[in-house]
């Protein structure tokens, strides 16, 4: 049994206002009777510090929406509404509740647990249109969550052989390829905005702490990051291999920007990298239409790892700026690429990373069930620090003021907490499925329930007019 993988969360609050869901206002007809201070168990209502005869403004931050103050105020003087901030921040993909839950997970590193049933829509777009299966009575044990049995979330990055070759005497001819093991199916993607030095260092340290890697433009990799070489994936163009030879020398993985000319030169490029180090190459390809063909060609040309990058909402990228472009969703892009490689019998040879729009822990196992090996994330790591993201009128990612004053340790711990919470949630879903190896999730659509399929099978069959 491999050594158990643990992420160590530590409660790390930030002294900062973030997003609140509710707003309570006190009307002028308040008679300062103090009933609200008695009925609120969350202490949203208090008397004014200087003048005890008057009530203070309600502290909306602690409101848990129990409605008792609203219902018990003798004068009906309290009013409540959804906070305007909360309403404004919600986009088509990045929903307001995501910000709140990610923020909370970054604070305590725990699996979010609440009472009452699910409160969202029946189904939704992309990953929201699938459920994961579970094991009822007749499947192997699935007791990994409480630690009595080990659930392995580790994945390998690198190329695999399709089959083994032997010589006439039956001796093994095949040399195994180099692979890189990481204990969680998540790496950190290139930061979406320019980072302050303390945030940059924290990002690297967080990756190191949880034994994963972060992709950084080679130009941003400073000599003092050398201690963390094993956790940094330099991102370069193919022309920059020699320029960054010093950095590549210590790297386990290197990411190269895809160009159409790359496929033919791939063997030579790999050779050039191998001359410098033993690093495994990741090719970063934008998720544009026809991506299946590109990926297939790359696999056939000997690619080791391919990262398919959708936009920040997990949508296909409109490369040629077509009018009326209907982008596919990440879920469908993954399934299509995976299936094509399966049909061509080359899926097992390659590691596929999918990134763009991964916002919640549940997206990770779902992405894998659709056919990915692992994912790369970016925005959630900054929401952990209080970032806000607006989709309309155009993408706007705002980091909070004063971030440069926070200590590296605090920022690191917030990111580690978030990943700790994600890891625990991945374990919950795998535990329920009875799957003990994350690698076995890949393409296991039999353990997923897709809305389109089951709705058609059930209601379609019953209610569609023949």
């Amino acid at each position: 049994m491999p050594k158990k993988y643990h992420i160590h969360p530590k409660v790390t609050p930030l002294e900062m206002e973030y997003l609140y869901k509710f707003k309570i206002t006190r009307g002028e007809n308040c008679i300062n009777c103090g009933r609200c201070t008695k009925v609120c168990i969350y202490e949203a209502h208090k008397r004014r510090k200087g003048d005890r005869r008057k009530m203070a403004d309600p502290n909306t931050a602690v409101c848990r929406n129990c409605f008792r103050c609203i219902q018990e105020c003798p004068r009906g003087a309290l009013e409540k509404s959804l906070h305007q901030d909360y309403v404004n921040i919600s986009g088509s993909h990045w929903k307001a509740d995501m910000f709140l839950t990610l923020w909370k997970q970054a604070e305590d590193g725990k699996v979010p647990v609440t009472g009452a049933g699910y409160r969202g829509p029946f189904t939704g777009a992309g990953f929201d249109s699938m459920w994961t299966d579970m094991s009822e009575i007749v499947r192997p044990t699935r007791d990994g969550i409480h630690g009595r049995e080990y659930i392995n979330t580790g994945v390998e990055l690198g190329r695999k052989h399709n089959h083994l070759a032997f010589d006439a005497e039956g001796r093994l001819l095949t040399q195994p390829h180099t692979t890189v093991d990481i204990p969680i199916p998540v790496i950190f993607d290139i930061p979406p905005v320019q980072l302050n030095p303390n945030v940059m260092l924290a990002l690297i340290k967080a990756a190191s702490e949880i034994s994963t890697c972060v992709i950084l433009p080679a130009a941003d990799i400073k000599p003092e990051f050398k201690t963390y070489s094993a956790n940094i994936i330099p991102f370069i163009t193919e022309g920059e291999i020699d320029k960054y030879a010093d950095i590549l020398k210590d790297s386990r993985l290197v990411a190269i920007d895809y160009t159409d000319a790359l496929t033919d030169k791939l063997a030579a490029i790999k050779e050039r990298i191998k001359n410098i180090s033993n690093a495994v190459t990741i090719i970063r390809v934008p998720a544009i239409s026809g991506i299946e063909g590109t990926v297939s060609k790359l696999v056939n040309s000997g690619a080791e790892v391919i990262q398919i990058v959708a936009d920040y909402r997990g949508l296909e990228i409109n490369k040629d700026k077509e009018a009326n472009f209907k982008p596919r969703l990440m879920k469908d892009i993954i399934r299509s690429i995976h299936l094509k490689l399966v049909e061509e019998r080359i899926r097992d040879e390659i590691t596929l990373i999918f990134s763009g729009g991964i916002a919640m822990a549940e997206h990770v196992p779902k992405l894998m069930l659709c056919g990915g090996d692992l994912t790369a994330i970016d925005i959630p790591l900054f929401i952990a620090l209080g970032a806000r993201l607006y989709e309309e009128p155009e993408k706007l990612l705002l980091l909070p003021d004063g971030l440069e004053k926070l200590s590296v340790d605090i920022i690191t711990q917030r990111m580690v907490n978030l990943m700790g919470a994600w890891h625990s949630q991945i374990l919950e879903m795998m535990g329920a499925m009875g799957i003990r190896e994350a690698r076995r999730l890949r393409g296991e659509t039999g353990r997923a329930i897709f809305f389109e399929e089951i709705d058609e099978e059930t209601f379609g069959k019953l209610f569609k007019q023949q």
Partner: protein
Amino acid sequence: MKPSTVKIKKMPSRFKHQVPKYKITRSSDCINCGTCAKTCPYGVHERPEGHNRVNPPIDYKCIGFDCESKEFCCLAQCPRKALSLSLNPMYEALGDPRWTADMITGTWIMAETGYPPERTDLDYNVGNSGGGFDKLRFKFPANPPKVDKSEISTAIELNRRNDGRAPVVISTPVYGGGMSFGSVSLSTMVSKAHNAAIWNTFTCTGEGGFPDILKPYDDHVITQVATGLFGVREETIQRVKIIEFKYAQGAKPGLGGHLLGEKNTEGVAKMREAVKGTSLFSPFPFHSVYSIEDHKKHIDWIKQMNPIALVSVKVSTPNDVDMVAVGSYYAGAHIIHIDGGYGGTGAAPDIAKKNIAMPIEYAIVKVHNFLKAEGARDAVTLIASGGIRTAHDLAKAICLGADGAVIGTAEMVSLECVRCGNCESGRGCARGIASTDSELADLFTEEWATQRLTNMYNAWNYQLVEILQKFGMKSVKELVGRTDLLEHIDYSK
């Protein structure tokens, strides 16, 4: 037909105000003439004797835009046109797509009055989730056979195996879900059982043990044998008419439970026969059940211990729920209880509630058809739960193939739950329903809660009878599996 023990009595809210749907705004043009106070029959406007000024409007009493067609509407009557009507932003903070604010308000009215709301502005029968029950509608025939309401039976048999065990009949095809000792307040637990006795149906103990205080209601209590086996004793098995094996719960399928050490108080520990202050795990699954054969062994033990009781098997809804159901039938279960993925809970990981296992709507159809194909459908009772929010959901579930349903959240909402979801955090439920905190658990009496539940069950039964009458049916049993009486708002075009 409702049991003679059912007595409907108005049981108003514990709170001074309800959550208002509308907002009446009085502008500075108001001259405090008091016309509005005289004209409004609902009591929105008040000018107390001897006061110069009219009180601020009591929004929750307003019936909204429907009033505008009435002669007495304050908007039209106000000589200065100083009043305006709008939707209250407060209402948006109540409820969610599955349990809309209208649904919560509607259930509150049912629990208060015993009947469905007379107001026509509440869409309380369907939610806003955009799928499942919320996309299904009844297809009522234009000229159904004439049936008098008094001829309509809502009773169902729970033992259909013809095996000599107790012929248990419930008067309405609904019973209360398992909520364990400690997860809800004692008044909640006792009132659930008391109401079950009044309605000649059942409630379930959950897995935390079977407190003696429920003794008077033994004939209406299902005791649960869950994976932790907490509080399970020969004596508790012998006390009841139905024993339920809980394999999984829809809100957290495939996951075990975990009672934190600090919640394991002296009382809880005693009930669970555990050591006070230790964390208690309910593992997943039963560590002694890895096959249907193991499962049968457990059912046989129970049957041996209690020679007349029925056995219910509660499972959640994985892809192979149909096979699990058939397996349970062959193992000897009388009731197959399937709990869908969107079901309620006192505490579950959000990730599990949203993502694991399928919604109940699909599972009912799957299991019903599979049992039919196996020739076993008539020998088991199929009970659905996990997202049955209203009487309409119940009737739709029966049309899809269930015999009846188990409800939990609807009962909690009757006791004025707002679904804030903080059942387990800190001191527990701020509204006193799911808390054992000494102060919070005293927020209502057992009498109040029992009547609220009895009223809500009555309103549901009333609606169910109405639906059956519109179909010209004399028994709810005729409704089972009648998908031809439903239409889907997307597909049936």
